[in-house]
C-alpha cells in the first residue's frame, strides 16, 4: 500500500505518529494544512481512486469524539457507543457503506488520542453498569495499527476502566501488537467473516478467512474475548450449508466457549452506498438477487427472503452447538 500524498495538520507535525509515517513513506508528497476538514471530502473523490491515488490525512478530531451506536448495533440490552479515531479503510469490500458515506476514500487518522480517551471516560461516567465502546465504525480497527501504534495506549486506557468494554472490529489478521499486550476481560476483538467464497470475491484486499480465524484462535488462547460478525450475509440457495461449514470451522479452530458473541446481519445498504456499490461493482455477485426498500429506508432483500436467510444462518450455528445467547441479529428491522 502506498499513499500518494500525505496531508498533515500543522498541530500534529511533530507528533510521533507523523514522524513514523513520514519515515515509512518518504516518497509521498506532503502538504502542511491547517485543518483536514478544509480538504478531506470537500470535493467528491471517486471511491475507486483508493486503488492508486490514495491520500492520507494526519489530523486531530474536533467536536463529537464519541457517538451513540445505532439501534441493534451490538449485543442487546447494553449501551453501545463508537469512538472516532480514523476515517476510511485500506480494504475494498464491495458492500462497504463507506463508499457512499464520505465524499472521499482517503484515509484520515486522528492523533489526539488523549482527547478521544477523555471523551470516552466522560461518556462512560453516565452509565452505572457495562458500557460498550466500538472502534472501527468508520475504519478497520486493526488494519493500520502497525502504522499508528495506537493500540498500547488504547488498551492501557481500557484496562484501567474495566467497566468499559472495548470492541476492535477487523477483517485483518494484523494482531502482532495485540499479542504483545496484556489481554483483559473487557478487551474484545471481533472479526467480520463470511463463507470463504465470499471472502475471496467480495472482501477485496482483506485477510483470507483462514488467516482471520487463525488470528482469532491465537488471540483467544492469549486471553482476549472474541466475537464474530457474520455480516453481511449474502443470499444464495446454499447459504445454510455455507454457514454450517463456517460454524464448524469456528468450533474447530477457536472453540464454542471462547466465542463471546456472533452477530448475524443480512446484506443491506444505505441508499447512497447502494448507488455507489452498483456503480463501482456492477458485476458483483451481491446484485444477483432482488432488493427492496425496507421500512427504515435502507435497501435490503425483501423481508421474507432476509428472514429466511437469518433463520437459516442462525440454525446453522445452533446445530453446530453454539447457544442462542451467543447469537444476535444486527441492524435487522
Amino acid at each position, binding site marked *: 500500500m502506498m499513499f500518494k500524498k500525505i496531508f498533515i495538520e500543522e498541530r500534529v507535525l511533530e507528533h510521533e505518529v507523523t514522524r513514523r509515517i513520514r519515515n515509512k513513506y518518504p516518497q509521498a*508528497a506532503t502538504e502542511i*494544512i491547517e485543518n483536514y476538514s478544509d480538504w478531506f471530502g470537500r470535493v467528491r473523490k471517486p471511491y475507486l481512486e483508493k486503488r492508486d491515488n490514495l491520500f492520507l490525512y494526519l489530523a486531530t478530531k474536533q467536536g463529537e469524539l464519541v457517538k451513540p451506536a445505532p439501534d441493534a448495533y451490538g449485543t442487546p440490552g447494553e449501551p453501545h457507543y463508537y469512538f472516532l479515531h480514523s476515517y476510511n479503510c485500506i480494504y475494498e469490500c464491495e458492500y462497504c457503506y463507506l463508499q457512499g458515506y464520505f465524499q472521499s476514500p482517503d484515509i484520515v487518522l486522528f492523533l489526539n488520542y488523549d482527547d478521544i480517551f477523555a471523551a470516552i471516560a466522560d461518556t462512560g461516567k453516565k452509565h452505572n453498569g457495562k458500557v460498550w465502546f466500538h472502534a472501527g465504525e468508520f475504519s478497520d480497527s486493526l488494519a493500520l495499527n502497525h502504522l499508528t501504534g495506537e493500540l498500547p495506549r488504547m488498551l492501557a486506557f481500557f484496562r484501567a476502566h474495566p467497566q468499559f468494554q472495548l470492541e476492535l472490529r477487523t477483517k485483518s489478521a494484523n494482531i502482532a501488537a495485540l499479542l504483545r499486550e496484556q489481554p483483559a476481560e473487557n478487551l474484545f476483538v471481533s472479526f467480520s467473516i463470511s463463507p470463504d467464497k465470499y471472502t475471496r470475491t467480495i472482501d477485496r484486499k482483506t485477510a483470507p478467512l483462514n488467516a482471520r480465524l487463525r488470528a482469532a484462535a491465537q488471540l483467544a488462547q492469549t486471553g482476549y474475548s472474541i466475537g464474530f460478525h457474520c455480516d453481511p450475509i449474502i443470499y444464495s440457495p446454499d447459504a445454510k450449508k455455507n454457514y454450517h461449514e463456517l460454524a464448524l470451522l469456528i468450533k474447530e479452530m477457536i472453540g464454542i466457549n471462547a466465542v463471546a458473541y456472533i452477530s448475524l446481519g443480512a446484506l443491506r445498504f444505505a441508499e447512497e452506498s447502494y448507488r455507489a456499490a452498483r456503480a463501482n461493482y456492477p458485476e458483483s455477485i451481491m446484485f444477483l438477487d*432482488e432488493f427492496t426498500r425496507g421500512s427504515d429506508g435502507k435497501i435490503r432483500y*425483501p423481508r421474507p427472503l432476509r428472514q429466511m436467510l437469518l433463520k437459516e444462518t442462525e440454525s446453522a450455528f445452533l446445530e453446530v452447538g453454539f447457544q442462542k445467547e451467543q447469537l444476535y441479529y444486527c441492524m435487522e428491522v
Partner: protein
Amino acid sequence: MNLFVFSHRPEASIFLQEHAYRTAPIMTERFYLADDRALLITGEHPIEIAARVSRALAFLGDNCSQVYHFGLALILEKFFVSNQPIAEIRICYGADGKNLWQKSFSLGTANGTDLISSSQRIRSLEDFIFFRRLAALADRETYAIAMACDEFGLRLRSAKYLIENSDAIESCRQIKNQAEQIAYELFQYAQNFTQSADAREENLSVPDGFYFTHSMRLKYRELLHILQKKYNLNTDEVLARGGMAEIKKQKLTPKEKGLHLLDALQRLLNPELYEIRRKYEESLAPLRNAGWKIDAAQSLEQGVLILSGKIANRHEQISMAQALLEYQDKSNDV
C-alpha cells in the same frame, strides 16, 4: 457520432483541415458538422462553454454518442505527471476562485492525470500551492464541458497538451509560436484515443410476438442480465428456461405475452421468493374479492396488512368484515 470540443481555434486547426466539415445551422462561426462527427469551438469562459456545449448536444440529440475534448493544461505538480507531452485526464475537479465545487467528474481513463478547472486564471504562487493539493494539472474549460455532458448522460474523454508552469506572458508567447505543432500533436494523439465508444445503452432486441412498454423493457434487460450471470447462461438459454416458447404459443396479446415472460423470468431469479409471494397473493385473494384494496408489497415488507376500502351498503359491510375475519396471514410461513 462523436463531438470534438476545443476552447480555441488554433488547437482545432488540424482537426478542421483533415475532415470535410461544413458549417452547422446553429452557432455558425464555431460549430461544424461532418458525416460521422461534429466539432465545436467554445471559447474560454466556463459559462459560455457550458451553454455552447449544451446547445450543441441538444442539436445533435441521440446522434451523439461520445464527446472528446482536446486542449492545453498547465502543470501544477510535475511529480504526478508523466514525461509525455500529452496527458489523458482521469478526474476533473472544479473551482470558482478558492471555492471548490462539490461535484467532480470521472472521465473514464483509469491511468490518467487529475485536473482542476479554475474559473479564473492561476497566476500567483499561492494559487499554485492551493490547487496542486487537489490535482496535478489545471485549465479553465474541462469542468464546464464535463458538466454539460453529464446533463446529457454522456461521458467526456479528454486529453491535454501539457505546458510548463512558467511566466504567464512567456507561456502565452510559447503557445502562440507552437500553435501548429501543438495542434498537430493533439490530432495525432486523437487518432488512437477516439475509438468509437457508444455511450448510449445498446439496443435490446425484443423477442418476436412480444411487446414491452418502456418500463417493461428496462425490467426485461435487468432480469436478462442478472439471470445470465447467475446461472451462467446466454440469452437464448435464459429465455428457454423461462418458457418463452410456451408463452409465445398462448392466445394472448403481445403485451400480455411480455408480462407473462417477465413473470417467468422473475420466478427464475429466485424461485423461493417467488413462491412466498405467490402464496401471499393467494392469501389476499378473498380480501380483494370482497373489495379491499391492498398494498401487498409494503404489507409484506412491513409485516402488517395495509388495506383500504369503500363501503357503500350493508351487504358490502358484511362481506368485507367477513373477509377480514377469515383472512389468515401466510406471510410468516417461511
